[in-house]
Every structure is written in structure tokens, then in C-alpha cells.
């Protein structure tokens, strides 16, 4: 690792520690934020409970296989909130003139956006996600070979990057049109609502939209299909489903290029 990278990592770590310390100084607020992170995922917990208690499966999948979808999505989402989730608050940062301040420092603006504050709610998200993953793995009949575990890890990272890519594109739009911030709320709602289901239970048009227009399917559904061996009726060729983690990386890199272009054309606030 180069000296420059090491120096950058040290600064990121230092600011993160200071941000964590700052958020912990307001004890009640800190605990409330963790709680809200967990409570926010209550619909997923209800979904998982109903799935296990009332149904044997869904869309031709066993309940234990279906449960892996929200587990992967939740873990990917929790990591996104923890590591790259400040993109979600870009509208506020633009309105407060913080982007102008970031542009005055010799540090990438994207990194400064991510270091704006510590996302305490991510702890709640990750606690729920980890619980769900433990539950899903303990009920799974799959043979968890090294290859399968590796793919699971890659799928979670790919899912995180894909979610980050979607929010980065919306954030890029916000740099030009601050009202685009509302789209991030819609996106979050959509990911929360449809992210936990096998998409083959939805009408074909909706499934197609959530695969090709808004690549939600590649976050958790398709990687789970690959892990559980569901290669039929998944809406895409099997090789494409298997490439989900790579699509996450590619999507994120493309989104960062969009971000860079938008930042170049940033026109600021208040004249």
C-alpha cells in the first residue's frame, strides 16, 4: 500500500473516531439512533416471522432459501449505511453550503461527504442484519463450502456497492438539481419494500423493471438464486445472475464517474 494511501486511511480513521466520540457524547441521542436503526427494519423482521410461521415457501423457493434474500439485503444495506450512506443526506449538505467548504480542502469531496458525521443508526441496522443472517444460515440446508461462503461475502459487498451506486447517482443529480433529493427517499422506500422478496412472485413487468431499469434484483435476489441453485425463472441468464457482485463493483465505479462529472458542473447555492 502506498504511503499516500496509508496517510489518507489514517486521516479517515482519525476523523471517524472523532465523529464516533462526538456522537457518543450525547448519550440519549446515541442510543435513540441505534434503536431507530433497528426499528426502521421492523417490516423485514415481520416479513421473516410471517414467512417462517405461515408459509413453507414462496415463488417455488423454500422459506429457508427466501430468508437468505432479506438477510443479504439487510447486511448489504447496513454496511452501505455505515461506510457510504452519507450520500443519502447530500441534499442537506448542499443546502447548508458544506459542499463549498469541502471544495476548499485538499481532499476528495466524496470522502468528505462520507466523513461528515458518524451514522449511529447503522449500528441498529447491522445488529438486525446480523441476527437475520445468523437465523437464515442456521435454517439453511445448503452445504456452506468455502466457495459458497466466499460468494456470499462477495454478494454482500456487491449489494452494498450497488445500493451505494444508486444513491450516488441520485446524489450526483442533487448537485445539479437539489429537488432530486426526494428521489433518494423513493429509492429507499422501494429497496425496503421489494428487496426482501423473490422477484418471480411479482408480475413480469414489475420484475423486469426491478431488474433492468432499477437493478434491485442484483442486490440480493439474484445472488441468493445463485447460492441456492435456482437457475430457472429468475428473469436473467444464470451467468448474469452469477455476475451480480461484479455488477455491483462496475455500477459503483460508473456512479463515481457520474459524481465526478456532476461535481465539475456544480453551481453552488446562494449565488
Amino acid at each position, binding site marked *: 500500500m502506498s504511503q499516500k494511501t496509508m496517510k489518507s486511511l489514517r486521516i479517515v480513521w482519525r476523523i471517524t473516531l472523532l465523529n464516533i466520540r462526538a456522537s457518543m457524547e450525547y448519550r440519549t441521542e446515541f442510543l435513540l439512533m441505534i434503536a431507530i436503526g433497528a426499528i426502521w427494519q421492523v417490516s423485514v423482521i415481520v416479513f421473516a416471522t410471517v414467512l417462517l410461521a405461515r408459509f413453507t415457501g414462496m415463488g417455488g423457493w423454500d422459506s429457508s432459501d427466501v430468508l437468505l434474500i432479506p438477510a443479504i439485503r439487510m447486511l448489504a444495506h447496513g454496511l452501505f449505511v455505515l461506510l457510504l450512506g452519507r450520500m443519502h443526506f447530500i441534499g442537506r449538505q448542499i443546502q447548508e453550503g458544506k459542499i*463549498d467548504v469541502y*471544495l476548499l480542502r485538499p481532499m476528495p469531496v466524496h470522502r468528505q461527504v462520507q466523513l461528515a458525521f458518524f451514522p449511529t443508526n447503522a449500528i441498529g441496522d447491522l445488529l438486525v442484519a446480523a441476527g437475520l443472517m445468523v437465523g437464515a444460515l442456521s435454517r439453511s440446508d445448503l452445504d456452506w463450502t468455502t466457495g459458497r461462503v466466499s460468494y456470499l461475502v462477495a454478494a454482500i459487498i456487491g449489494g452494498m456497492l450497488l445500493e451505494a451506486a444508486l444513491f450516488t447517482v441520485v446524489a450526483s443529480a442533487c448537485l445539479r438539481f437539489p429537488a432530486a433529493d426526494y428521489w433518494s427517499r423513493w429509492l429507499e422506500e422501494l429497496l425496503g419494500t421489494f428487496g426482501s422478496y423473490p422477484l418471480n412472485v411479482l408480475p413480469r413487468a414489475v420484475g423486469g423493471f426491478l431488474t433492468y431499469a432499477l437493478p434491485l434484483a442484483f442486490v440480493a435476489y439474484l445472488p441468493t438464486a445463485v447460492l441456492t441453485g435456482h437457475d430457472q425463472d429468475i428473469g436473467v441468464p444464470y451467468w448474469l445472475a452469477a455476475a451480480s457482485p461484479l455488477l455491483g463493483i462496475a455500477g459503483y465505479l460508473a456512479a463515481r464517474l457520474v459524481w465526478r462529472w456532476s461535481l465539475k458542473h456544480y453551481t453552488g447555492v446562494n449565488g
Partner: protein
Amino acid sequence: MHLNGNIEVRGLSRTFHTTVRRPGFAGALRSLVNPQKVAKHAVCDVSFSVAAGELLALLGPNGAGKSTTIKMLTGILTPTAGEARVAGVVPYEERERNARNIGTVFGQRTQLWWDLPVRESFAILRDIYEVPKAEHAARLKEFDELLDLSSFWDTRVRHLSLGQRVRSDLAAALLHDPPVVFLDEPTIGMDVVVKEQVREFLRHQVEERGRTVLLTTHDMTEVERLAERVVLINHGRLVLDGTLDEIRRKFGSTWQVRVTLADPHTEVGSLPGIALLRHEGPQAVFGPDGPDAPTVHQALKQVIERYEVTDLALDEADLEDVMRAAYVHAESIAEGA
């Protein structure tokens, strides 16, 4: 510190495209279906330079284009035309390199971390700008002596008063020892004591440290105390670039000499370059007449030599009046164009 701290601006322009808002609900609908775009020239063909170690006041009424100019010089905005170099760097092409050469304070927003104590913000900036620890400590000590920072630097930024916050921002902007400093209304809303402290600090930075400072402000006392040269822009265009003395000579001849004559029946008239403005009984008021009018002191001498007076008073335009006259002049040129 870098030696080349000059600023060069050539034909700098920035145009924003906005949609015209038509009045009423029907107008709003029409704007939605058929938006009418207009180009707003926030900065138009502005050229000036600031020598290393010089403090220049960039003045103009609200919306004149001052902040947009500063944003282009600091790398926040990219110009639509023209070129700028700050300490030899094109700021909008090499943003991060430019950031190392400049310090910036926006009076209305902070660059410090809101939830952290001031001293921790300073420490983060030290890491970002890669300032050696000993150098950082020495500079912080110097700034503490000038700005009295230690009385509040363990307080979180969100709990600071405006004066404390801007003093912290000033220190933060200079901790990496930049040769060029941009200050956008740094003392706005401050009390007179803190304002004076900040002015002293800035004077010290220019005179002792040789920093180049570009300052925007509406406070003419500040301009008078700090700047030798002024650039005035209005409607995005440069309308004046000169020293304070030159500007006073051009727009400051609004003095009045009021005298009480010893003999109220004295016949009073105009003098060369001096007009009689009013005359009632023993009271007479004189003012400048034409572009070759004398200075207020020369006029006073002439009046006293010509008439026998028992009392006199002088009204000389202060810098605020001078700038007002300059703005009005700029407006009349803009309307005529």
C-alpha cells in the same frame, strides 16, 4: 510560505442559466410546459490582479458578483470564460493543489466540524494539510496570542458565539500557512471589539507575514482600516480599480463648507471651483463646482481668505458616501450602456 502569492484574473466570466418564473398559476403551468431560460451573467469579463503581500478589497452592492468571483478563485466554481491564476495555479483545474495555497473564510458559514471541539478541528486540518506537529503548535500559539483562542478552543463549534466561531475559522484558514487568503464578509454581524481584533489580525498577516488578501465586505470602516486598493464590481462588471485616494478624488468631492459671516450683509458669490449652495442672512454654504473643484482644505482656505467669518464647519464625505457615489455612477453607466 510560498513566495508567489499573487492573483491574476483575465476576462473572468460566469453565466448561470435560470428559468423565468411567470406570474400566477397559469404562468407556472406555462413555465412547466414551455420553460423560458434566461442567461444571468453573474460575472462578466472581469480582469484585475493582486500583488503578493497586497490586501485588496473587492466591493460592490449585494448581488454584484463578489462571491461568485471568490468562488471561481477558490476552485468552487468553474468560469464560463476567462482565466484565473492564484499563486500560479488555475484553481478550477487543480482544485486540491490550489486548496493547499489558499485559506478561505466565509463569514456566514464555518469550515470547522460542527460537533467537535475547535482544537480537534484544528488537529484534523493539520493532518489534511500535512503540517508538521511542531510547526502547527507554534502557529497555534501565535494565533492564540492574537485571537485569544484558548479561552474557547475546547468548546464544540456548535456552542460558540459568532465572534468566537469566525476567529476560529480565521485560525483554521491560516494554520497551513497559505500565501493567499480569501475573506468573504468575515466580520458580518460581529460586535465592534471582535471586529477590531479581527482587523488587527488581518493587518498582522499582511504586514508581518506577507500574505495576499482578497477581502469582500460592506463595512467601509474595515476597508478604510485595511485596504489600500479597491476593486468595485457591479452587475458582474468591473467598474473601478484604484487606490482609496484615487477613488476619493473621483467620487469623494461631496464636501460642504458652512460659514457664519461677520457681516450678514456681505455680498457672497461663487469662487473658482467652489459653488455657493445657500445663503441666508449670515449663513453661507459652499460646495464643489465641477470636476476641477479643490479639496475641502483648499476650499476652506479660499473662503477664509475671501470672506470674514466668525464660525465655520466642514462636512466631508466619508468612505461610505464615496462608495455610494461610486455605486450610483456605476448604475448610471450600466443604464446608459
